[in-house]
C-alpha cells in the first residue's frame, strides 16, 4: 500500500470519513458514509466527486486536429473551440486502448482526459501514433485536479460560485472561468447521467475548491460521493467503463458504441479497417444490459447461461440499482443469444436476466 498515488484531496477525504481503497494504483475514497445513500443523493440533489486521478494530456501543434482524427474513432473535425467529444481510441484490430474526452481549446490546441489506470499505456500509445505528425504531446496529469459536481442542483450550485454565465455552456461544451476564486476549465460533462460540471483546476487549489463547493452545496443536499457511487451511477446510466464493457478484446461496435465510430469521417484512423469489417459482417458478440427483478447482485465474471443451462457469455459489470432496488448489470454474449432467454446461477438458484436498453432510470442531463 505504500506506493499508492494520492490526489491533492487525500487528506480532505480522510478528514471527511472516507474509506480509502486502492483504485488502479490510487488511494481513493470508495465511500464516505454509504454507497447507496451517496448514489441517491446524486439523483436527488447533488454529489461532489474527486476524480483527480484521471489523466490529462495537452495535444498541441499545427497538425493536432489531424493527428487526433487519426488516433480516435469519433470525428474530431466536428469540434470547434469550446466543444467536447467522447470517443474511444482503438488498436488496429478494433479493440479499445481507452475511452476519452477530447476538448478543443483552439485550432492547434486540444486537451484530453483519459482513464487513471491507463495513463502510462495511453501516453505510450499516443506518442507512438504521433510519429508522423507535427504535434506536441504533454502529460499534464500531475498539474490538474478534477472535481465533478453532479446532480439536479449541481449546475445552479456551480453558477452561484462563478461570475461567468454558465447557461450557454450546454451538454458536452466547456468554458474557462473562476469558481470560488479558482481558475477552472468548466466542462458540462459527467459520468452519472445527471446534469452538472466537471472542473479541471490547478492541483494546489483542490482543497480550497472542494471545501467551497461542499459548504455551498450542503444546504441544497449535496454530499461527498465516492467511487462506489460513481460506478453504480454510471452503470445505471448505461455508460461503459474501460476494463468492463470496453477492453482490448471488446470493440466499440460490440459494446453498442457504434455512434462513436465514424467510418465515413473522411480520415483513416487506427482500427478503421477492422471496425468496418466488423460492421459489415455484424458483430459476433454483443454487450447487453440487464435487470433481474431480484436484489441479489450479479457479480462481474459470473457465467451467463442460455435456456439449456450452457454458458454462452459472462457478466461484465453488476451492482444493485439503488433507485430500482434490483440487480442491474452488463454482459457479453453471442449476438444470436442477445434476444434469447438468458440467466445466471446465483448460489444454485437460476435468476433470469431481462435484457433492457439503458439508461435504467430516466436521466435529467441537459
Amino acid at each position, binding site marked *: 500500500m505504500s506506493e499508492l498515488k494520492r490526489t491533492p484531496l487525500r487528506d480532505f477525504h480522510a478528514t471527511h470519513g472516507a474509506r480509502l481503497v486502492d483504485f488502479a494504483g490510487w488511494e481513493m475514497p470508495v*465511500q464516505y458514509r454509504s454507497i447507496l445513500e451517496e448514489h441517491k443523493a446524486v439523483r436527488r440533489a447533488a454529489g461532489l466527486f474527486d476524480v483527480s486521478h484521471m489523466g490529462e494530456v495537452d495535444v498541441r501543434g499545427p497538425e493536432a486536429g489531424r493527428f487526433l482524427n487519426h488516433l480516435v474513432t469519433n470525428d474530431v473535425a466536428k469540434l470547434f473551440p469550446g466543444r467536447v467529444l467522447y470517443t474511444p481510441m482503438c488498436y488496429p484490430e478494433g479493440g479499445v486502448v481507452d475511452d476519452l474526452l477530447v476538448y478543443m481549446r483552439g485550432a492547434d490546441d486540444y486537451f484530453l482526459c483519459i482513464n487513471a489506470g491507463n495513463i502510462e499505456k495511453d501516453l505510450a500509445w499516443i506518442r507512438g501514433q504521433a510519429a508522423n505528425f507535427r504535434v506536441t504531446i504533454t502529460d499534464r496529469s500531475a498539474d490538474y485536479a478534477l472535481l465533478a459536481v453532479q446532480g439536479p442542483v449541481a449546475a445552479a450550485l456551480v453558477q452561484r460560485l462563478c461570475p461567468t454565465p454558465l447557461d450557454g455552456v450546454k451538454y458536452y461544451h466547456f468554458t474557462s472561468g473562476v469558481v470560488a476564486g479558482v481558475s477552472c476549465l468548466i466542462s458540462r460533462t459527467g459520468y452519472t447521467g445527471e446534469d452538472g460540471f466537471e472542473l479541471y483546476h490547478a492541483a494546489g487549489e483542490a482543497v480550497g475548491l472542494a471545501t467551497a463547493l461542499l459548504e455551498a452545496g450542503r444546504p441544497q443536499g449535496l454530499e461527498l460521493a465516492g467511487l462506489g457511487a460513481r460506478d453504480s451511477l454510471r452503470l445505471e446510466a448505461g455508460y461503459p467503463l474501460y476494463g468492463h464493457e470496453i477492453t482490448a478484446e471488446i470493440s466499440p461496435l460490440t459494446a453498442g458504441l457504434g455512434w462513436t465510430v465514424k467510418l465515413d469521417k473522411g480520415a483513416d484512423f487506427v482500427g478503421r479497417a477492422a471496425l468496418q469489417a466488423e460492421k459489415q459482417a455484424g458483430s459476433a458478440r454483443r454487450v447487453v444490459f440487464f435487470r433481474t427483478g431480484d436484489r441479489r447482485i450479479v457479480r462481474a465474471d459470473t457465467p451467463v447461461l442460455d435456456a439449456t443451462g450452457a454458458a454462452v457469455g459472462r457478466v461484465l459489470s453488476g451492482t444493485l440499482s439503488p433507485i430500482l432496488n434490483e440487480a442491474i448489470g452488463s454482459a457479453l454474449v453471442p449476438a444470436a443469444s442477445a434476444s434469447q432467454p438468458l440467466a445466471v446461477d446465483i*448460489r444454485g438458484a437460476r435468476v433470469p436476466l431481462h435484457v433492457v436498453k439503458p439508461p435504467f432510470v430516466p436521466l435529467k442531463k441537459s
Partner: protein
Amino acid sequence: MSNIPDGLRYAKSHEWLRPESDGTVTVGITDYAQSSLGDITYVQVPKVGATFQAGEVFGVVESVKAASDLYAPVAGTVVAVNAALDAAPETVNRAPYTDGWMMRLKPADPAAAAGLLDAAAYAQVIG
C-alpha cells in the same frame, strides 16, 4: 471503533449470539462485520426448522462489495428468522445487534454458547 456489547457471545467469523430466557439463542453479525461489508443489499436467512452444525453455513449476506457466508456459531435448530431483512437488508448496517438479527436457534447443547468468545476476547480478534 466497533461497538462490541458486553453480555453477548461472539464467533471468530464475526457472528454474535445472545442467549434468551426461553433457552433459545439469537444470532446476527457484529458491528465490525457490517462496517467491513459496507452497504448490505441482501440477506439470505434459512428456513424455520433447518438444523445446523456449529460452523456450518446458515445463510449469506451480500453487500455492494461482496457476498459472504454466514456461519452458525453453535449447533441447533432454527425456530425463527428475521423476515423483515428481505425488504430492508440495510437494517443490518443500522442496527446489527437489535433489529438486524438474523435467526433464533434452539441449541443442540444448551451449554455450547459458553465456548464462544466474550466481548473482550472478540475485541482482541478484530484488533
